[in-house]
């Protein structure tokens, strides 16, 4: 593997650069903080002729997703990006994209949802999209944003999958960070990502119908097909990640581990807090606390089996949620993880810290504190870490 020069760039711009390498036919992006730099830079790349993409300047996110679905249905490779209120406005279209098996790729610059208004970072915007039938993958740093974006269409367009993909890029913490990243050559990407060959397309010469009205005789079949496609997508996703590792040397897994060997307590994180959490684990290990870290990379389909293997010897799991699932008694990641262990003969004590909401800066010291507390847990706990009242 050739050593490549690392290039310094803001991560949002790097996301747009990666999209620009994917031979996207149609992009329909409506700018919204902190996604705006992706929208702006991709439009620069189009205007400068660096990518042969039709950039549709839409009037809302509802339309950007509508354009993507329409374009994808005609056989075009389609892209969009959004977050927060924009993603909420798009919400009603997401299950349509997945049911119509449109392999759209969307970058989500994870940001809270109103009210109160907050433009910083957490996972509140992605959580209402959990059941939309999209593949959702989270990134921890700029390099992962580049890699996961470049792999997204290979995953989405695989004949065994044919589903849309979201790449979660935590707002500001990642989007507004200037850091070094490596980019493959365009030729390598052209080889890795062949042109999209759709299974079926809307075309006046050969009329067909997609996503139309369905009665009870057919509707449940569509729902089952979508669910099976999503559940089955995991092995193909891993296959694509394996190929990436062979070509470019960086490894991606649905669940990734850090110092979990023999760990009695395992912290569970998702997104940009994960590397900071690694430093917290190092500090705890230095103090003699037996702690490791598990990082959820693949949020949908949920990697239940991989998670069970990753934490099999742990006494306590401490799930760090950057969102709330109001009324369930925990955050969304916590709820899913508890479901994984129902039915297991031996299960860990699972505690839940909801933290980092609305852009609260989560430090190494915070992970040390949460890790120390979790290590002493005797029963299930759910708390808003660092919040009074």
């Amino acid at each position, binding site marked *: 593997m050739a050593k490549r*020069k*690392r*290039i*310094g760039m*803001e991560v949002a711009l790097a996301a747009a650069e990666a999209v620009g390498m994917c031979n996207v036919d149609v992009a329909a992006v409506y700018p919204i903080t*902190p996604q705006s730099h992706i929208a702006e830079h991709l439009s620069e790349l189009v205007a400068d002729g660096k990518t042969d993409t039709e950039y549709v300047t839409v009037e809302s996110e509802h339309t950007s997703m509508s354009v993507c679905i329409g374009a994808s249905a005609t056989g075009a490779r389609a892209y969009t990006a959004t977050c927060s209120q924009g993603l909420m406005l798009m919400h009603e279209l997401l299950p349509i994209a997945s049911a119509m098996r449109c392999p759209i790729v969307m970058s989500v610059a994870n940001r809270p949802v109103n009210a109160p208004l907050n*433009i*910083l*970072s957490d996972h509140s915007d992605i959580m209402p999209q959990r059941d939309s039938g999209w593949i959702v993958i989270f990134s921890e*740093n700029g390099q992962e944003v580049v890699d996961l974006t470049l792999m997204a269409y290979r995953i989405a367009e695989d004949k065994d999958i044919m589903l849309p993909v979201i790449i979660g890029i935590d707002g*500001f*913490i990642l989007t*507004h*960070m*200037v*850091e*070094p990243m490596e980019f493959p050559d365009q030729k390598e990407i052209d080889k890795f990502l062949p042109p999209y060959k759709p299974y079926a397309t809307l075309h006046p010469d050969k009329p067909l119908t997609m996503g139309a009205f369905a009665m009870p005789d057919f509707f449940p079949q569509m729902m089952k097909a979508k669910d099976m496609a999503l559940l089955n997508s995991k092995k193909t996703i891993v296959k694509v990640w394996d190929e990436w590792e062979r070509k470019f040397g960086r490894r991606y897994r649905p669940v990734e581990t850090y110092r979990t060997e023999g760990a009695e307590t395992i912290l569970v994180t998702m997104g*940009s*807090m994960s*590397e*900071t959490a*690694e*430093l917290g684990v190092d500090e705890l290990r230095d103090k003699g606390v037996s702690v490791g870290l598990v990082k959820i990379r693949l949020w949908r389909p949920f990697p239940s089996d991989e998670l069970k293997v990753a934490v099999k010897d742990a006494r306590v799991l401490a799930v760090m949620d950057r969102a709330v699932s109001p009324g369930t008694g925990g955050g969304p990641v916590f709820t899913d993880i508890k479901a994984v262990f129902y039915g297991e003969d031996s299960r860990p004590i699972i505690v839940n810290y909801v933290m980092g909401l609305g*852009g609260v*800066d*989560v*430090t*190494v010291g915070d992970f040390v504190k949460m890790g120390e507390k979790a290590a002493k847990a005797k029963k299930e706990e759910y708390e808003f870490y660092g919040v009074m009242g």
Partner: protein
Amino acid sequence: MLEIRWHGRGGQGAVTSGEMLTLAAIEEDKYGQGFPMFGPERRGSPVAAFTRVDDKQIKIRHYVYKPDAVVVLDAGLVDVVDVTDGLKPEGAIVINTSMSAEEMKKKLGFSGKVATVDATRIAWDELGVPIVNTTMLGALLKVVPIVKIASLKTPLEKRFGKIAKKNINALNRAYKEVKISKQS
């Protein structure tokens, strides 16, 4: 790892300074992070930005709380922001002011290195505008040699195009003119 905090007012270029320094470090095949204090941008209000530089991959992803160096682009901020907050005692602070380094050191009551430069005057002379980001970068590099000035050439040319040369002149002048307090 070196951690730097920048204080400025919205529009003065504190974020740009941090970014340029980060890009120069990456040019030298080091690792770097450059990022603003996140939030809405408001011209004229106090803003902060951060830079980290290291020889190995930087995993930490939160604000800088214990900087090795602080750069203040607007001396007026010294009265409204705790600019030495968390600054390591052996660290350095570089301030854009016409005050002498000794006077400023007394005002701040900071035990480490205090350096001052009249960056606004240099920026007026060299750029014709009171935007002191690149000028203060020159002053910082004299006090804390983080990257080679030559490594800034490409990032500055990419960012400033035709006026990159003027920025480099301002940077070089601040590098020469910055005065460092005698260690106490």
